[in-house]
């Protein structure tokens, strides 16, 4: 096996209660007038992490990032970076650099001067600056573009100049505000991997703000989902997707089918939920912290449901199966999305990988189908 450097993605320091966080955000609140853009957020980020702050517009993710950079004052709370309290430290004295959403490249300077800008402020020798800029240009694969002006570059090239400029001073912490937002889809996917690679080779701690859940999933060691100024959930990408802690998180990340139901059986090893929406019982094959007759929600991802024409033998008696009619089929190439109308009128979204080429047996419009799932396929949500 190849030798890989010790990185946070492998070491997972957040699972160790003894580990010392690198960035410590405690009870941070930011109010603009009466509106709290960030409300009582506490967050630990560890060295070498690539942490994504994910949220819709107005969720407070950018404000939190700007407070880390020092562009916004805190209304309440503390931010510590590498053990140092950041209160009253101006942006130009923080061990932090930021890559701006619009890149904020200096339009009157060449690529070389843009990258060297931060180094010049440190009064490095000319030779040191030249060596460092050359190193960075190599890192972002922009050799030969030294004398170009930003307006002579493509969007992807500008993004790389901005990244090089923000990495130039070897910050302990790099903040990236929607780093790939301005790139087209194809370029974005390529750049995502580059970004992870650069993060792993430089070992710098990255905090990335994004509204793109796919980007967050593919980039990060951990994701913090933000909603209305608060952290809704913090976890590894898999946890966020497979074990969401609330209806908001389940709905925000990927697509999901959500059913409201009432607990009829509450045992240590399983629970049973009666849901009129789902048209039957839902059997969950693990214990859940709930009470009989409690109303709760059950969420299942589209790819975890199986569609069949014949009624399959249920895994559990009278549960985890429902009947409906295919209303719509969307062919996406790698998979197809089926929309099934249940007898309750609720629409179920199911995806199926197209493993056969031009499958003649494929389920089609207006067919009566059975949808079934396993006992551990869905998540029980109480909030």
């Amino acid at each position, binding site marked *: 096996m190849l030798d890989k450097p010790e990185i946070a993605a492998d070491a997972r320091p957040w699972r160790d209660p003894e580990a010392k966080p690198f960035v410590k955000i405690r009870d941070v609140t930011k109010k603009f007038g009466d509106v709290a853009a960030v409300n009582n957020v506490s967050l630990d980020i560890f060295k070498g992490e690539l942490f994504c702050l994910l949220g819709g517009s107005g969720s407070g993710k950018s404000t939190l990032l700007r407070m880390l950079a020092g562009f916004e004052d805190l209304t309440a709370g503390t931010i510590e970076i590498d053990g140092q309290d950041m209160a009253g430290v101006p942006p130009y004295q923080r061990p932090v650099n930021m890559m*701006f959403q619009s890149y904020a490249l*200096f339009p009157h300077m060449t690529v070389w001067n843009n990258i060297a800008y931060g180094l010049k402020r440190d009064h490095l020798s000319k030779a040191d600056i030249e060596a460092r800029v050359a190193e960075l240009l190599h890192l972002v694969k922009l050799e030969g573009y030294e004398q170009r002006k930003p307006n002579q570059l493509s969007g992807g090239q500008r993004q790389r100049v901005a990244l090089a400029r923000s990495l130039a001073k070897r910050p302990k912490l790099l903040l990236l505000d929607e780093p790939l937002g301005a790139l087209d889809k194809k370029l974005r996917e390529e750049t995502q991997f580059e970004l992870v690679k650069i993060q792993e080779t430089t070992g710098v701690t990255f905090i990335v703000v994004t509204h793109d859940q796919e980007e967050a999933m593919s980039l990060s060691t951990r994701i913090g989902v933000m909603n209305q100024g608060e952290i809704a959930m913090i976890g590894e990408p898999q946890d966020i997707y497979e074990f969401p802690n609330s209806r908001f998180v389940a709905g925000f990340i990927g697509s999901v089918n959500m059913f409201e139901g009432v607990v009829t059986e509450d045992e240590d090893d399983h629970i049973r939920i009666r849901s009129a929406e789902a048209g039957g019982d839902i059997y969950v094959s693990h214990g859940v912290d709930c009470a009989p007759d409690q109303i709760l929600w059950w969420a299942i991802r589209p790819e975890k449901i199986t569609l069949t024409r014949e009624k399959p033998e249920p895994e559990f008696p009278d549960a985890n199966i429902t009947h409906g009619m295919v209303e719509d089929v969307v062919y996406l190439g790698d998979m197809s999305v089926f929309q099934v109308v249940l007898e309750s009128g609720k629409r179920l979204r199911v995806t199926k990988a197209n493993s056969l080429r031009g499958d003649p047996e494929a389920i089609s419009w207006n067919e009566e189908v059975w949808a079934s799932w396993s006992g551990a396929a869905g998540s029980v949500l109480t909030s």
Partner: protein
Amino acid sequence: MGKLERRRRLGADLVTAELATAGLPRPVWRPWGFLRERLTMMGIGGRWAVILPPLLWLLIFFLIPLIVVIKIAFSESVVGQPPYMPLLTISPEGDVQMTLHLSNFIFLTQDHLYLDAYLSSLKIAAISTILALIVGYPMAYFIARSGDRARNILLMLVILPFWSSFLLRVYAWIGFLKNNGVIDNTLEALGVQHLIDGLNVALAPLGWAIPPLPWTMLYTDFGVYIGIVYTYLPFMILPLYTNLVKLDSALLEASADLGARPFRTFLSVTLPLSMPGVIAGSMLVFIPAIGEYVIPQLLGGPSTLMIGRVLWDEFFTNRDWPTAAAVAIAMLVVVVVPLMILQRAQNAVVER
């Protein structure tokens, strides 16, 4: 049948169809259509119709008078009405003769008064422009960085002086600047004389001394600088403001983020990016200041030499129109040359 031909045929058919159904043609008075038709007949299309009015305006009110002035500049001065010889003469034999007198221009180079006046005008205009820039830049910066509501009020305050007469405002300065005027009296009332005495004791070893109150400010070059800076300040502030207000605050944040202190950010980011505004504002102050007449006349002293005053004297005191016209033409050249240089510099900045 070719495609084009078929289309033509179709068009012809449509026209005949229209004529057939139209019945009796009803005459409709369309003034714009009529005008357009006439203009088109004269070869004036849409683009020309737009350009023509300003072109005519410039031709009648700028180019023709300029040609008249040039004509006078090349003629000979006489005592009479008009006080210059005609350029074209027709001899009794019917020969048309044109005599260009370069003597007026040669005279300008011989009498050092004119050269001194040009140089002095350039100097006063340049110093005034620099002063206006030093005063105007912070004001423009502050206005551009203030909130939306405050910004509108501040801009209004900058433009407000234009609502009263320029002449009146310059006159008002006489009351401020004169000996025992508003400024002198205020300084005296504040006890500044004691401060000056104290400072003079400290400065004595260096051989410097601050003159005692009251200070003579009116009828000096200083008064002219005050007048020009005061009058032309809005012309400096407005282009600077329109430039600075467009400045992306993310660039300033990026600079701070990379370790630049606010003053460094100003020198490296704000100032270079505002150069087009600096050049535009400087041009708007410098060029009219060169030919300024009223301010040096009212606030300047007898030693304040400016080309505008020389021109006035030449016209109205000496009644030497040809020399005055030559001064005017020479001044035009002196103004146009720096204008072109600045224009080029600005284009270079914009291209960058």
